[in-house]
């Protein structure tokens, strides 16, 4: 009895039965109908999932015969692993979707019946093995959909529904005609039979039949340009219905394609082409969307197109073993995220994406929204990430570089418009506040699907052989801290620091060389700088979970053994830094640029890793050294990705905004720590690939110039800034340029220089940003001309900044000089003379902004309202003094670091730097830091002593602020006496033409052209049903011609 209840055939039976009974019972009692409805869906979902568990556990595919007769005389169904997966997913969506729509559907029992029949129809589409039966189920699904589309009752939805009717009717007619012709050719309607008789499917009739069959199935998947009707449906249908169309009906249609593709073997290139074009175009047009549901529609179409194209390519290249993972991952990701987003759209009731800013008052919903968007884009840890990774690897392995580019470009576009939407939600509310109904039936499905997404991601990670303890540690930490988010910020901060300490203690000793050093820098340095965040009071909700995720993902980045682990950690870093920056008050406009460039960087890395996999067949990072033919490309792609992340010249436009608008003490982490993650990657890539012969030299040469031009332009742009954080942001950009250039030299001196500069940068940038954060907190402004004379009130901050600027400028005796010495020796040894001159110039220009920083803030005239300003909080000085201590130690014992760096490349690069005691020697010059420090101390102390001695005999009077020699005038206001605004006006006159915002104009232009192009592509969406019908017909003609070309 129980076994009979668990028969998969019951999916159809139960659906049909409910379909008949519901209207009858509905007449009698509404409540009973609703109960039966839910019960049926629950039964169907449970049945499907039971079958899935069985199939996943290894049970063989069930062949279900009907009418007691074997096919082809009767219809048979199959319930194998693939069918179980799709059916299970669709029925789950149906169950939760039905629950979500219960109130709405329950108004008329007929609607309930239609919904159940819809789910049943989709199940049938998936399970059936008979072509004509497939047509029947397509029709059933279609009819049910038509009925449900009318549920909204608005004029627009009825019109859209009618267009849907027209288009899908034509499509299914083609399908039927194709079936008829195939029957005529082979004598069977059974799909397996047709495959066996594939040899009979030849000739002109076969071409027409195949074209018709394919068109019929493809149209259901809404290809461009014959998909205007589909988009209108997404836009106007009630969100719950749109969800079912997007995830359910598409699933059925896709599976139908999957089933008939073996019959259409020749047409695989056509399917791939259609899928690829639709994916790219839909994502392009999605950029122009401001209607939330239409935007989701474009995304749905794009996702299904990607799946179709992936299927076709994998079949073509024979990589069929990857199909379940890739398509399964993409599908489940799409299903769960899309349904969740449609349901959320329904709950909010806001049509325009702009208006989603109302979510900022509802943190739980906002988190759900963010999670769904992150999952949809294909970011870890969700299933889409794993699927996309594998897809890129497979595409790269088959040498299909253009497809890799297409997939990544399309994904980037999709990410941009989805995150633009999320950005609206993260911003300040623009419309009236919203009270979201808290009905269980509204939020429970969304929450459930978020949970399933997370579980799916977890499962896929495990199936991939991922280290479930350490690699997912960032996520565990985030979850734990999120659970206790109500606690005061300081408590969470201390817990975070303890956690980081434990993590460091457990993981760092096991590392060596480059990884050890960077782990110390990223995790240790990050923890140190984060101490300053303890100054903040209140709960600081969301800050500590995200910060934990960020710092631990950086730790995992360094510990990665495979490119997948590296990429996983990299993406986690991207996500967490994005949300952390979003916490800044005015961060809204900066977020999209930050994300777009970060993801572009990530995708370049992905492409590089794919190419490396293609060359070596392994994803081990250590195997990068074996990359052969594609070494310049791999190095170039990886380097480009890392350079974008640190703000190289030309791709730096996101940097000043993101750094400036992020919370002040977080900017210290961003600048000092996060950019070092990218440097680590660059050094790793250089180490493995930099010594290969051939075009790699050209890549490194270009990288060197890029680094130094970035150094110069970063410095030039910094000196014109009025906002202190923007000044430091441009300074970061410039300083990291030196690091990149040093790495590009690929000599031992260059390597040591690069690492030395990187450590230095962490020390002094962290120091400067923390000191400045303290000043900003006290003065309440970021504009330097509104500060001034603060040395009297904030002497400790002054000392911090002073040490920082001496260290950056490279003035002896502090550690900066060592970096400069190493860099110049490396460049000149390599023969890069002009680059060395450029580095010198950039270093000189750096002086300008450093002076501006310290003068306009601490020296000069103090504003009257700042008379009683207090020094920054003592908590922020703990990390600052630690950093100063490190700088001092490094100034006197740089050998601690250079020896470590030299050992990393001991057998690989010939030695250029030799130490004898405290004297460092290179081929060209020498340097003795200890002695220099001693001489400088002496040279400083003697005049100081003289002056102090003389002052014993003098009467020194401390004068008031305005007591200065001022050409016989008497200044009375600091605003007119403090030289701070437009400090380098003369420099602007001399060299200002170099720093006009050309890169911004360029990227604005790129964005505008893409949008215009996308707009032009919309020309096919006339809104007219007849036109759409014509397009569907024309599509058949197009497919026919393409089929002719291919076969």
């Amino acid at each position, binding site marked *: 009895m129980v076994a009979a209840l668990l028969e998969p055939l019951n999916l159809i039976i139960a659906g049909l039965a409910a379909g008949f009974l519901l209207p009858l019972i509905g007449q009698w009692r509404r409540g009973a109908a609703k109960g039966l409805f839910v019960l049926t869906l629950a039964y169907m979902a449970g049945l499907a999932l039971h079958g899935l568990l069985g199939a996943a556990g290894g049970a063989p595919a069930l062949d279900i015969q009907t009418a007691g007769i074997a096919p082809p005389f009767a219809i048979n169904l199959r319930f194998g692993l693939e069918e179980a997966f799709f059916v299970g997913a669709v029925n789950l969506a149906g169950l939760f979707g039905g629950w979500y729509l219960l109130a709405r559907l329950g108004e008329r029992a007929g609607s309930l019946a239609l919904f159940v029949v819809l789910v049943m129809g989709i199940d049938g589409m998936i399970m059936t093995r008979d072509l004509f039966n497939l047509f029947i189920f397509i029709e059933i699904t279609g009819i049910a959909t038509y009925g449900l589309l009318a549920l909204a009752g608005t004029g627009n939805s009825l019109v859209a529904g009618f267009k849907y009717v027209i288009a899908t009717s034509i499509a299914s007619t083609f399908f039927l005609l194709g079936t008829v012709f195939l029957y005529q050719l082979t004598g069977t309607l059974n799909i397996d039979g047709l495959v066996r008789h594939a040899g009979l499917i030849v000739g002109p009739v076969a071409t027409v039949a195949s074209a018709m069959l394919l068109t019929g199935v493809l149209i259901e998947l809404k290809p461009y340009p014959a998909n205007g009707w589909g988009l209108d449906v997404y836009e106007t249908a009630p969100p719950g219905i749109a969800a079912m169309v997007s995830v359910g009906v598409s699933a059925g249609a896709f599976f139908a394609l999957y089933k008939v593709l073996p019959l259409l073997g020749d047409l695989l290139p056509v399917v791939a082409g259609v899928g690829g074009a639709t994916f790219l175009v839909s994502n392009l047009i999605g950029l122009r969307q401001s209607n939330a549901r239409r935007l989701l529609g474009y995304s749905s179409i794009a996702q299904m197109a990607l799946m179709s194209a992936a299927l076709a390519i994998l079949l073509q290249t024979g990589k069929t073993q990857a199909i379940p993972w890739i398509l399964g991952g993409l599908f489940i990701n799409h299903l769960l995220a899309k349904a969740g987003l449609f349901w959320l759209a329904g709950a909010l009731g806001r049509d325009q994406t702009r208006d989603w800013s109302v979510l900022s008052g509802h943190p739980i919903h906002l988190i759900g929204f963010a999670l769904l968007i992150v999952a949809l884009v294909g970011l870890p840890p969700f299933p889409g990430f794993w699927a996309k990774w594998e897809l890129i690897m497979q595409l790269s392995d088959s040498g299909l570089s253009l497809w890799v580019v297409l997939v990544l470009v399309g994904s980037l576009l999709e990410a941009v418009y989805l995150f633009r939407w999320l950005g609206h939600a993260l911003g300040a509310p623009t419309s009236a506040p919203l009270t979201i109904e808290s009905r269980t039936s509204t939020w429970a499905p969304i929450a459930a699907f978020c949970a399933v997404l997370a579980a799916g991601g977890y499962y896929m990670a495990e199936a991939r052989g991922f280290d479930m303890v350490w690699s997912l540690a960032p996520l565990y930490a985030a979850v734990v801290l999120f659970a206790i988010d109500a606690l005061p910020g300081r408590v969470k901060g201390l817990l975070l620091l303890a956690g980081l300490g434990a993590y460091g203690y457990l993981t760092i000793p096991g590392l060596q060389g480059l990884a050890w050093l960077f782990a110390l820098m990223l995790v240790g340095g990050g923890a140190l700088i984060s101490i300053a965040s303890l100054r903040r009071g209140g709960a600081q909700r969301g800050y500590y979970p995200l910060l934990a995720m960020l710092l631990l993902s950086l730790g995992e980045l360094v510990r990665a053994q495979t490119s997948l682990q590296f990429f996983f950690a990299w993406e986690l870093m991207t996500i967490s830094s994005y949300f952390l920056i979003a916490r800044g008050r005015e961060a809204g406009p900066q977020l999209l640029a930050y994300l777009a460039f970060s993801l572009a960087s990530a995708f370049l890395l992905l492409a590089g890793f794919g190419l490396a996999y293609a060359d070596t067949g392994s994803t081990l990072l250590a195997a990068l050294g074996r990359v052969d033919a594609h070494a310049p490309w791999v190095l170039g792609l990886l380097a480009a990705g890392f350079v974008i992340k640190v703000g190289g010249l030309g791709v730096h436009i996101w940097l000043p905004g993101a750094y400036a608008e992020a919370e002040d003490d977080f900017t210290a982490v961003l600048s000092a720590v996060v950019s070092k993650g990218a440097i680590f990657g660059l050094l790793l890539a250089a180490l493995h690939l930099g010594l290969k012969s051939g075009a790699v030299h050209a890549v490194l040469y270009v990288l060197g110039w890029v680094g130094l031009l970035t150094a110069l332009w970063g410095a030039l742009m910094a000196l014109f800034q009025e906002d202190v954080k923007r000044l430091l942001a441009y300074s970061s950009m410039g300083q990291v340029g030196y690091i990149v250039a040093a790495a590009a030299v690929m000599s031992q001196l260059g390597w040591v220089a690069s690492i030395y500069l990187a450590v230095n940068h962490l020390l002094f940038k962290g120091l400067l940003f923390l000191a400045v954060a303290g000043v900003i907190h006290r003065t309440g402004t970021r504009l330097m001309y509104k500060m001034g004379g603060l040395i009297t009130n904030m002497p400790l901050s002054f000392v911090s900044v002073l040490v920082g600027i001496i260290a950056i400028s490279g003035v*002896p005796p502090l550690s900066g000089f060592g970096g400069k010495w190493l860099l110049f020796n490396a460049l000149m040894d390599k023969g890069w003379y002009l680059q060395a001159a450029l580095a010198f110039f950039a270093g000189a220009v750096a002086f300008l902004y450093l002076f501006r920083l310290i*003068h306009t803030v601490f*020296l000069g005239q103090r504003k009257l309202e700042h008379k009683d300003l207090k020094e920054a909080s003592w908590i922020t000085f703990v990390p600052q003094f630690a950093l100063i201590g490190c700088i001092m130690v490094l100034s006197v014992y740089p050998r601690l670091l250079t020896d470590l760096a030299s050992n990393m490349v001991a057998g690989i690069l010939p030695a250029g730097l030799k130490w004898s005691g405290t004297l460092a020697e290179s081929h060209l010059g020498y340097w003795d830091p200890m*002695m220099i420090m001693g001489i400088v101390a002496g040279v400083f102390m003697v005049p100081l002593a003289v002056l102090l001695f003389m002052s014993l005999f003098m009467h020194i009077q401390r004068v008031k602020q305005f007591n200065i020699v001022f050409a016989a005038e008497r200044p009375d206001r600091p605003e007119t006496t403090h030289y701070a605004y437009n400090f380098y006006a003369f420099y602007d006159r001399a060299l200002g033409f170099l720093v006009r915002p050309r890169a911004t104009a360029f990227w604005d232009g790129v964005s505008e052209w893409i949008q215009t192009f996308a707009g032009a592509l919309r020309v096919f969406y006339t809104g007219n049903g007849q036109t759409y019908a014509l397009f569907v017909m024309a599509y058949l003609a197009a497919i026919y011609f393409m089929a002719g070309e291919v076969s």
Partner: protein
Amino acid sequence: MAYWATKIGYFSICLLVVTVYGLLLAATIARTMAKVQGRIGIPYWQPFLDIIKNLGKRTAISHGVMFFLGPVFRIAGGIGTLAFVPVLYGSEMFGNFTFAGDLLLAVYFVFFGQLGMALGAGESGHPYSAIGVARGLGQMTAFEVPFALAIISIVIQYDTLSIGQITAAQQGGFEHWTLFTNPLATVAAMIAFLGMTGYSPFDVVLAPNEIPIGPPTEFHSSYLALMATNQAIFAAAKLVLFMDLFFGGATNLIELVIKTWAIYMVAVVVGAAFPRFRVDQSIRFFLKVPTLIGIASVFFVQTLLVH
């Protein structure tokens, strides 16, 4: 220990000699200019008197700690630069601490003094001090470019960053001087030198004879004494550096005096003949022809000269 005592002792002597020489040189130049203008000029011992007078002043005002430290930084920069440059080639007494660092250290030490000056000037609260410093730094970034190119050129030529070795390579007759073996680099460096000395046409930083502007605006008494001393030391240090790099160095004090006086006269003559540039003009100036000369010297050295 005794070694260090000796070194410090020698350095003190060198410092004293250089200071006296620097002050005398300043007086000599002033007198020469005066003669050109039909005056007698200041007595030779005037600069010494000025310093003693300033040191002897019994009152002073202070604007704060940094103001106090500014001149100390400045003179530390001057003395430090001298400390790392060998004054006389082959001399134990006048070799200074050049074994601690090479040419890069000497060049970067110039910045040390600039920084200190900048800080001290800023603390005074006088906007003209700050404007002067800003202009001075701006000009410095510009003239450092041909200077850096010239240095790179001679580093390629002599394959070393050590000042001592560069000087050594120029011994054995004046035809070995960098002036004759690498004239382009010398020209570029000398043009940069004009910027460094702060004579016309690049003297907008101090804008002498016109308004009290520039870093020293607020300094007086002992502070001014230190700064005036530094002027002598720093000028002498730069001259010695240039002499070592481009003009064959000096093996005895007479040669030192003659050569440095001659180099200094170049700046003075140009300064007497030309009016002042605006600061943005001077920045652009250095980045045009002098930079091209510098780049040319780098290429010249690479292609024509072989190690």
